[in-house]
């Protein structure tokens, strides 16, 4: 009671606290009692000025009170209602008011009002809507609207005001009442005011926060539904306005109730349509909650105002469709549900325009405007447009295929997509990146290390945003998913053939369509397309994609590829710069752009093949006959974009065919590859890359392939015979691979021949020595006889040589008749007999390759001495020339090859080496010894140094393997000696020491003698006093440049002879 007399904050707060502690029931019981003081305070507020805080606290107390109880008394309600509403009107504009209410006060009042309305029973609340109260209602609403539209007021107040508006519009109650539809009329007059205010909020500053935005949208929706709802409108128009006329109230008040006849609707609609348009512009709001509110907005409007706002249906649908593709499921799901609901309802109502039709129409107009919008609008807008497109297509679903049956639709759609997805190929990068490609040989195993596998980046002319791209591609996939594959593909292929400008985008789109179609097999099978239909399309596409012309688009002319590299280049793969130079040549005919385009197109083709693979799955195996080779060939492309795309495609193909890896794919289908290769070898000038594919196959496959590739190898050999100069570069790597493969398939059992160590001989039984000597002499004689015979041929003229060889050939044939050598031996022999011409080629690169082949080939044949030795004999003539070659690299390689020959043929070549090779090597070593003496460290990087090192490190072993002795051994030894000097580079010294150690194993005595000539640590003590001390050596014990090495060697000699004693 105190409160009534002296309203103060304290008291009110006390009551509030008290009330909070009570049960709901208790509060309900005390309601009347409690309301009274609060009301009194509020009354006082209206008439006199009380402290601000009191009003707020009172309102809060009222809030608490009402929230804990229900109001049943009409009189009390109306009383409170009018007090509160009166309070609301205290404003600057209202002169009757004792003062202006502050923000907080307004807030409190509005909140109280809101609670009051919510917590009043229906009957009580009905009082507000009694026609006689219409004026008050109107003024309350307009005041609330004023709060809302005043942007200066606080956010919470505006929000609260909108809440109150919502409550006032009585969502809660009117449904139960007979006259609920009459509400519409009551609010109809307020529609413009409310809706405009809300619109202002909605299109207002984006900083105002999404909550406000959502609420405003809600209010807008509510008022629109209330006044323009189909049911309420029709009820009203059916039953007429009798209820208004029948009301007992002054005419003035009656006029406040709007008669919602057709004229009224007509007058309101344009405004509403305008507002819908305005609102729908904001559909791409950043906040997903706002977008969700949009869904609700669209849903309600579509549901309740379908007829009245039918003109806006497509617009609203557009919003919903767009939102359906939203990235947030919270938005997309209800949007979809709403659309589905709409569709269901549409189908149940007769005479309504079916959703499908609207959608089709929308889609059509969208498609029409798409190019313009994609070209002109900003990125974000583009994304939305594309999202919309996707929405339409996915919503149309299976109806899409029907739509696509109409030719104009398809062609328009196709043209638009093609235009929109125009690829930008002006970027220099495509070409720049191409330098790193796997040039020439396609070595799968290290392909991944060499080439950074990546897909070429697709850049589009009309947009940059990845979302737009993803959206457009998704549209294509959706088309493929729903539409008829063959019609679509046919249509795009037509465009593709129509103009070169559209090729890129056409292929891209077809790929996506196909991919989209592939997704279908997991879900529903289309009505129009059967499995076989798909297969036909895939076959057709593969044929188109992999046609010769398409696959050679980005090839530079084979001739330019075969330009011999500069002679200094030691690597077999030319550098990037060389490639670029090639390209400069071609620049005359094709600019970078056209070349870029070609690369891109090739990549797209390859990607298309990958898609085909994905779509067909295991059935692709049957198509591999034609599809495998072109892709494999492209993997060897020098354009990295192409080669890596090809690799990825192969991966996809392997996966589709259910092979575990690309290797297995190639292995299992080697026969197809061989077929393609052998046919292409026939037209070598058109298919310069076929050999490299063959070499990849050789690398990957196992023995059984040999019989398959046999005829291809013969073909290569024959082509090689015909076009020696030009094509050897291409073919030799293949042959080399063949020799390597043979080595892998048929591992050599042979261990390098080693002459028996001679050192133990001295300690052996004299009889044995004699026998050994005799035997040795005999074999020597035999060998010499043979070698003399061979040597005798040397001076012969070339023709005689040839005749001799032919004779030998015949002999061989006879031998073969008795026992045909295995196929692989035959192959290696054929290869080796070709290399004999190539070894003497003027191009050092060829020579090097040929030497490689000889090296490997001899190893392959090591188990077949009967084949090997005649072959070595044949090769020797041209081979021995290599040691005089001006190109030191060739000499190095020749030495290495000789080393291999020694290990395989042993003493067979001893005589020849002594005669043909050693002199030149000796002079070379001696000459170089002068140069390398006291040289700087930079000498280590010269070719000469490498040559010396190779020679010194191999000579010993070679001598050992050949069983060199006597003069030959001495020759070798003496050319090594200068390198024992400490003035020589350490590496050379070391190599030389090792070699000399091996020479010791040939004949220790000679070595000892030679070494002693260089440096004698001490005069050797005679074994017995009967012998005179040897006095041949000068400077015994004097240290010189050789002493270190020689001492070391002597020590080694002693230690190695000890175990025998």
């Amino acid at each position, binding site marked *: 009671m105190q409160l009534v007399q002296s309203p103060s904050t304290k008291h009110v707060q006390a009551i509030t606290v008290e009330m909070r502690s009570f049960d709901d029931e208790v509060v309900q019981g005390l309601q009347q009692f409690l309301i009274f003081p609060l009301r009194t305070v509020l009354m006082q507020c209206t008439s006199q000025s009380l402290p601000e805080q009191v009003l707020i606290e009172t309102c809060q107390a009222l809030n608490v009170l009402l929230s804990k109880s229900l109001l049943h008394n009409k009189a009390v309600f109306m009383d409170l209602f009018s007090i509160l509403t009166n309070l609301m009107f205290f404003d600057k504009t209202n002169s009757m008011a004792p003062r202006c209410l502050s923000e907080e006060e307004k807030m409190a009042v509005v909140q109280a009002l809101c609670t009051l309305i919510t917590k009043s029973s229906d009957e009580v609340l009905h009082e507000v809507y009694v026609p006689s109260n219409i004026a008050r209602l109107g003024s309350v609403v307009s005041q609330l609207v004023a709060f809302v539209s005043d942007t200066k007021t606080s956010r919470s107040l505006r929000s609260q005001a909108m809440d109150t508006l919502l409550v006032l519009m009585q969502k809660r109650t009117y449904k139960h009442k007979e006259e609920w539809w009459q509400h519409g009329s009551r609010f109809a007059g307020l529609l413009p005011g409310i809706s405009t205010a809300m619109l202002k909020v909605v299109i207002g500053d984006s900083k105002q926060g999404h909550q406000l935005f959502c609420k405003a949208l809600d209010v807008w929706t509510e008022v629109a539904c209330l006044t323009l709802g189909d049911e309420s409108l029709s009820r009203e128009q059916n039953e007429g306005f009798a209820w208004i006329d029948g009301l007992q109230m002054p005419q003035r008040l009656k006029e406040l109730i709007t008669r919602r006849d057709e004229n009224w609707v007509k007058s309101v609609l344009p405004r509403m349509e305008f507002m819908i348009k305005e609102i729908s512009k904001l559909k791409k709001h950043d906040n997903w909650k706002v977008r969700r509110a949009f869904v609700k907005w669209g849903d309600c409007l579509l549901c309740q105002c379908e007829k009245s706002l039918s003109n806006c249906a497509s617009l609203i649908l557009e919003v919903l469709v767009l939102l359906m593709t939203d990235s947030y499921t919270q938005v997309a799901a209800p949007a979809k549900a709403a659309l589905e609901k709409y569709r269901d309802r549409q189908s149940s109502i007769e005479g309504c325009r079916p959703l499908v039709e609207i959608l089709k129409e929308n889609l059509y107009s969208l498609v029409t405007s798409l190019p313009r919008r994609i070209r002109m609008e900003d990125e974000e807008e583009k994304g939305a447009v594309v999202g919309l497109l996707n929405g339409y297509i996915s919503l149309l679903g299976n109806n899409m295929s029907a739509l696509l049956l109409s030719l104009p639709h398809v062609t328009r759609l196709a043209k638009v997509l093609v235009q929109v997805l125009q690829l930008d190929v002006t970027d220099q990068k495509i070409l720049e990146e191409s330098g790193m490609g796997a040039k020439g040989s396609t070595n799968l195993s290290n392909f991944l290390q060499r080439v950074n596998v990546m897909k070429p980046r697709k850049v589009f002319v009309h947009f940059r945003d990845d979302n737009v791209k993803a959206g457009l591609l998704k549209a294509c996939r959706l088309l493929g998913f729903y539409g008829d594959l063959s019609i679509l593909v046919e249509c795009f292929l037509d465009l593709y053939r129509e103009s070169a400008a559209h090729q890129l985008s056409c292929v891209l789109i077809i790929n996506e369509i196909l991919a989209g179609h592939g997704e279908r097999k997991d879900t529903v099978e289309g009505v129009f397309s059967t499995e076989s239909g798909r297969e036909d399309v895939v076959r057709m596409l593969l044929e188109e994609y992999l046609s010769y012309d398409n696959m050679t688009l980005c090839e530079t002319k084979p001739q330019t590829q075969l330009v011999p590299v500069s002679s200094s280049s030691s690597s077999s793969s030319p550098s990037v710069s060389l490639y670029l130079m090639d390209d400069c040549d071609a620049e005359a005919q094709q600019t970078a752009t056209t070349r870029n385009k070609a690369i891109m197109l090739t990549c797209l083709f390859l990607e298309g093949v990958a898609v085909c693979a994905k779509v067909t799955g295991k059935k692709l195996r*049957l198509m591999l*006959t034609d599809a495998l080779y072109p892709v494999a060939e492209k993997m060897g492309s020098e354009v990295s974009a192409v080669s890596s795309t090809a690799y990825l495609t192969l991966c996809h193909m392997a996966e589709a065919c259910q092979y575990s890896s690309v290797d297995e794919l190639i292995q299992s289908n080697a026969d197809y590859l061989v*077929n393609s290769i052998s046919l292409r070898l*026939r037209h070598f000038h058109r298919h310069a890359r076929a050999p490299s594919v063959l070499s990849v196959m050789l690398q990957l496959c196992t023995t059984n392939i040999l*019989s398959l590739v046999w*005829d291809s190898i013969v073909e290569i050999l024959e082509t090689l015979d015909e076009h020696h100069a030009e094509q050897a570069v291409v073919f030799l790597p293949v042959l080399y691979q063949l020799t390597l493969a043979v080595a892998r398939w048929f591992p050599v059992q042979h261990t390098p021949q080693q002459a028996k160590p001679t050192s133990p001989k001295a300690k052996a039984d004299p009889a044995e020595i004699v026998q050994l000597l005799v035997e040795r002499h005999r074999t020597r004689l035999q060998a010499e006889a043979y070698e003399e015979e061979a040597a005798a041929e040397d001076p012969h003229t070339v023709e005689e040589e040839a005749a001799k060889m032919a004779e030998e050939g015949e002999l061989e044939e006879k031998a073969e008749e008795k026992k045909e050598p295995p196929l692989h031996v035959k192959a290696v022999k054929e290869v080796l007999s070709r290399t004999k011409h190539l070894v003497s080629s003027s191009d050092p690169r060829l020579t090097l390759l040929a030497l490689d082949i000889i090296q490997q080939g001899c190893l392959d044949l090591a188990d077949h001495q009967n084949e090997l030795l005649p072959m070595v004999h044949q090769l020797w003539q041209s081979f021995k020339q290599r040691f005089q070659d001006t190109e030191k690299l060739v000499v190095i390689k020749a030495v290495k090859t000789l080393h291999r020959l020694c290990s395989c043929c042993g003493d067979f070549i001893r005589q020849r080496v002594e005669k043909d090779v050693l002199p030149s090597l000796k002079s070379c070593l001696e000459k170089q010894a002068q140069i390398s003496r006291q040289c700087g460290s930079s000498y280590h990087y010269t070719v000469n140094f490498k040559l010396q090192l190779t020679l010194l490190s191999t000579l010993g072993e070679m001598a050992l393997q050949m069983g060199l002795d006597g003069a030959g051994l001495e020759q070798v030894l003496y050319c090594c000696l200068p390198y024992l000097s400490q003035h020589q580079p350490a590496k050379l010294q070391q190599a030389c020491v090792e070699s000399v150690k091996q020479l010791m194993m040939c004949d220790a005595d000679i070595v000892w003698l030679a070494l002693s000539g260089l440096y004698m640590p001490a005069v050797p003590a005679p074994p017995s006093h009967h012998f005179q001390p040897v006095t041949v050596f000068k400077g015994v014990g004097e240290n010189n440049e050789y002493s270190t090495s020689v001492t070391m060697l002597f020590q080694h000699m002693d230690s190695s002879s000890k175990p025998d004693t």
Partner: protein
Amino acid sequence: MTRFVGNLLRRDEVPRDSNSAPDSYYAPNTLLFISESSMAGVVPNKSIKTDGSKEPLPPPSPTYILRGAESPVTALEYTEPALGTLLSGCQNGTIHLWDLNSRRNEETFDAHNGKPVLYLKSEDASRLLMSHGRDGYFKFWKNVGPEFELDGKIEAEGDGFCPPVPLKQKKLTRLIALPGSDSVVNIFELNSRSLVRTLSSGASSGELGLCMCMCAIPNLAGNDESLLVGYESGKMILWDIGTGKIQHQAPVHADAVMCMAYSSPEFNKGLSGSVDEMLVAWSITEDGEIQTVNKLESTNAGFNDVKIRPDDRIAVTAGWDNNIRVFNMKSLRPLAILAYHRDSVHCVEFSENYMLAAGSKDHLISVWDIYRQV
């Protein structure tokens, strides 16, 4: 007589006679390639550029190659196109089954004890297979699941090179002419597998020599087919099967008749090849006589096989020179030379959809897609 030259013939230059095939028969603007490159030394690529702008078409290539036979291919047989299978017989007596879709060898079995297979014939959707080899047996095979099972055999007396020929008579529809010893030909009935007639000239065997090749000559009027046999002496004899009498004989070739083929009786033209360069075209007159129509001279000697396509438009020969030659049947002029094999071509065969298969001594079978546009 026509002399082959290394040359390109354009479509409009293709020799044709006045009642030649309709235009669509030849692919428009197709360059028909003829070369003797392998022997005459004419490099194909040096040929005339026709339009200046356009690169000349490369010489024709086989569509694909079937690899995997381990011996020279001596006989070929297409099954029905729907099955997509090709049968091939080898020098070493094995028969291979090729799936033409996957282009792989499906099955291999030894049919003739290591002796060359001369003849293959599949019947009843390839459930039944007949083969003849130089082991002197004509064998029947049944397709049991994936494998073939021997289902009886007929012993032919001879072990020559002559493949048998199926014959049709009014009463006995399934006859087969099997070469006997020397120049004798035995006619067997396939259902009962019994000998029904022996064709022997009665002359000493030296006179005619071995029976080298045969072909059935259908009669326009009746159903009774005659049998034309080519002998080692170069003589060709037309036998009346019903009576077992000689209808007509003519010394068509100077040396052994290696191969022969006859078109439909309406078209009435046959081709035969020998060991020399000559290919002889002949026809059977109304009186049942062999009449030489034309002689074609090829650059290289020796023909192993000749086949006339069922539509009588083209004929192909398998040459010792490793080449397959294609002839226009109307004009009897050469259309193309198909060079692929590295060794003598042994046999050629057309499928029902006019794909051409050729088996060679180099163990390969090449399949060609040529002149199929009808």
